[in-house]
């Protein structure tokens, strides 16, 4: 973590919480947790609400689909921490880690249907080029995706285009697979609140 305040600048109660997390999970406190718990009134409290609504709020997309979108946007941004974290969550949600790996390595794979693939293409373009036009949206609509589902996917894109940048700018420590496995169980059970 590049800023010492994000690593060690939390209040006493929060530090006790981190110690409990370490004791129960037997893993280091995830640095994303350190970020959202630092002066939470400034950023974390509000960002968690945005992310929870996008990832666990009402949607025609499944939790697995939404976690796959999060992993896919993160991979497009070359964000190692978030890609590994949400690859693990998507794999657990789908009960199919190979499916997630397949999509992340080749979007044209047939393991997902055209509506999800077209949506991921749209998210990739928005993330890479910072722009979309009417024709881009029409292609997704033509694939059978409703406007509401498109808006839901854009909300996920907002959340992860924010978090990916913060993870890399502050240089989150990237732990081993076991830590991401534990994190995935937590996020599937509790969400982002």
């Amino acid at each position, binding site marked *: 973590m*590049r*800023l*010492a*305040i*994000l690593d060690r*600048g939390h209040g006493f109660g929060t530090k006790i919480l981190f110690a409990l997390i370490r004791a129960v999970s037997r893993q280091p406190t995830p640095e994303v947790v350190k970020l959202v718990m*630092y*002066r939470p*009134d*400034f*950023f974390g409290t*509000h*960002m968690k*609400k*945005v992310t929870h*609504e*996008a990832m666990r*709020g*009402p*949607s*025609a997309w499944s939790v697995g689909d939404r976690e796959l979108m999060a992993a896919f946007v993160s991979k497009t*941004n*070359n*964000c*190692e921490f978030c890609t590994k974290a949400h690859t693990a969550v998507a794999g657990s949600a789908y009960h199919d880690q190979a499916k997630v790996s397949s999509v992340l390595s080749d979007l044209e794979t047939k393991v997902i249907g055209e509506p999800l693939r077209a949506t991921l293409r749209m998210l990739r373009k*928005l*993330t890479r080029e*910072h*722009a*979309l*036009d*009417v024709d*881009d*949206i*029409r292609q997704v*609509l033509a694939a059978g995706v409703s*406007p*509401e589902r*498109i*808006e*839901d996917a*854009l*909300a996920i*894109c*907002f*959340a992860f*285009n*924010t*978090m*990916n*940048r*913060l*993870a*890399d*700018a*502050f*240089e989150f420590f990237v732990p081993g697979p076991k830590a991401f496995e534990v994190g995935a169980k937590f996020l599937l059970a509790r969400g982002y609140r």
Partner: protein
Amino acid sequence: MADIRQARTALVARILEGDGEASHAQRRAAFDNAGLTEPLRTLNNKLTNHAEMVTDDDIVAAGAAGLSEDQIFEVVVCGAIGHATRQYDVALAALRAATERSEHAPRDPR
């Protein structure tokens, strides 16, 4: 449908208009990625275009320019949210345009 509008509006209002260690002008400039001076200009440009290329030196340079860690934290948060906001707004405008056109398209005269 998930509805992030209220939470996102509250988030943006808090980081830009609420109390902070960085000035309101600094936070707004980072959010807009406009009007920043060096070294924050370089830091924010990397943050928005290739965040994985931000280095220790970029953060050290911001500190050497007189920013505290809390101020750096705030301007980086504002820069990231500002960039994601511009993407989101552009995409929502395209979605509105695409759906308005299809809703108002001439009906098939069968």
